[in-house]
């Protein structure tokens, strides 16, 4: 199981990194989404793995609980990365609408051409 | 007065049931909370449901449900057999146009749902004026029979329920 999780994180990270290195905004967004999945699982795994031991206290039985803290952290992280992704999507859209293409690299024209106020 | 408190009695009932289902435990407290929510939630959401239809014969719903349930079981076996044992070349799929007598959107939806859930038929779309359903039949050599089946077995009952 541990190997499964570790390799899954690795695979998602690899896929995410590859996509993040693309030249268009959309694949980059996909890549970041993949990376955030990966990191969520990674962070979650830092509480170690347990099956059928949810951290919900049971009044009746003395059952094992998995580490709740990383779960809370991941929750926070999920929400934050959602907000970030939403903003990113919107900015990417804005950049596309303004520039007419969704290349993510700034070109020379963009570096020098625009008169800014 | 009662109407004011329970503007949507059927809805309230359904939602209370849903609440109990969610809580999965029937206690007085849950029941009370369920009823309260069952009253409040429809008030909040009713803006999205204008022109709510009236069920003329609520009890027919049960009968209809049982018929459909039975048909679903049969359908599953039939479809399973077709999938498993028929060669692809022998499967004869057909389009069927089912003209509708129903006009209530809710009834049409119920019918379309039923068609999809039952033997080898999927309702793919309505006519743009909502007076026909286009049904795709997985395997049949008698399209008209299928259409008549639908009309008698389901549409008639729904008509009774809604109109």
């Amino acid at each position, binding site marked *: 199981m541990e190997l499964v999780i570790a390799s899954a994180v690795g695979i998602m990270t690899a896929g995410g990194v590859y996509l993040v290195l693309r030249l268009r905004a959309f694949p980059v967004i996909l890549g970041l989404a993949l990376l955030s999945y990966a990191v969520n699982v990674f962070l979650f795994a830092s509480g170690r793995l347990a099956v059928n031991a949810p951290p919900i206290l049971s009044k009746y039985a003395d059952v094992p609980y998995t580490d709740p803290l990383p779960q809370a952290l991941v929750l926070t992280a999920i929400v934050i990365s959602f907000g970030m992704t939403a903003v990113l999507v919107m900015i990417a859209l804005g950049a596309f609408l303004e520039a007419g293409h969704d290349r993510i690299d700034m070109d020379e024209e963009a570096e020098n051409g625009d008169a800014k106020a | 007065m009662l109407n004011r408190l329970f503007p949507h009695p059927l809805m309230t009932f359904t939602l209370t049931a*849903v609440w109990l289902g969610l809580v999965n435990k029937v206690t007085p407290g849950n029941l009370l909370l369920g009823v309260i929510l069952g009253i409040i939630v429809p008030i909040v959401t009713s803006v999205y449901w204008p022109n709510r239809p009236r069920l003329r014969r609520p009890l027919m719903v049960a009968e209809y449900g049982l018929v459909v349930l039975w048909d*679903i079981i049969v*359908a599953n076996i039939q479809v399973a057999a077709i999938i498993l044992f028929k060669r*692809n070349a022998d499967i004869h799929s057909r389009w069927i*146009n089912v003209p509708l007598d129903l006009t209530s959107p809710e009834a049409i939806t119920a019918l379309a749902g039923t068609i999809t859930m039952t033997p*080898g038929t999927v309702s793919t779309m309505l006519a*743009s*004026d909502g007076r026909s359903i286009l049904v795709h039949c997985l395997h049949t050599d008698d399209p008209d029979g299928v259409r008549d089946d639908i009309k008698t077995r389901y549409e008639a009952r729904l008509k009774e329920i809604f109109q």
Partner: protein
Amino acid sequence: MDLIVEILIAFFLVVSGVFGLVGSFGMIKLRDTLQRLHAPTKATTLGVGGVLIASMLYFLVIKGSFSFHELLITLFLFLTAPITANFIAKTFMQAHTRDEDLPPTGREYGWSLYDDPPNQTDY
């Protein structure tokens, strides 16, 4: 009693498993998309139904607690499955089926995918 229930539960589980598998098998076996549409929307629905019944029975008899929230899932699925099928069919047909391939409605308005609804043309 317990044995009978156990057998019953096991029966439902097996049945649901079989139907679930058949549904998914249909997905790869059938040759065109509209046919494939039939396999999962039917078989899988019963498959899940079987599991849900098994679950209810199991909690009722083995665990001794009456559990009926499974019904809610059933309700959900029954409400949604036709809509999903409907949409997927249209998605496919928009690209692959033309108006002429379908039986005519017999009235002035055609099928909704291709024909504007009455009195609404401005889009």
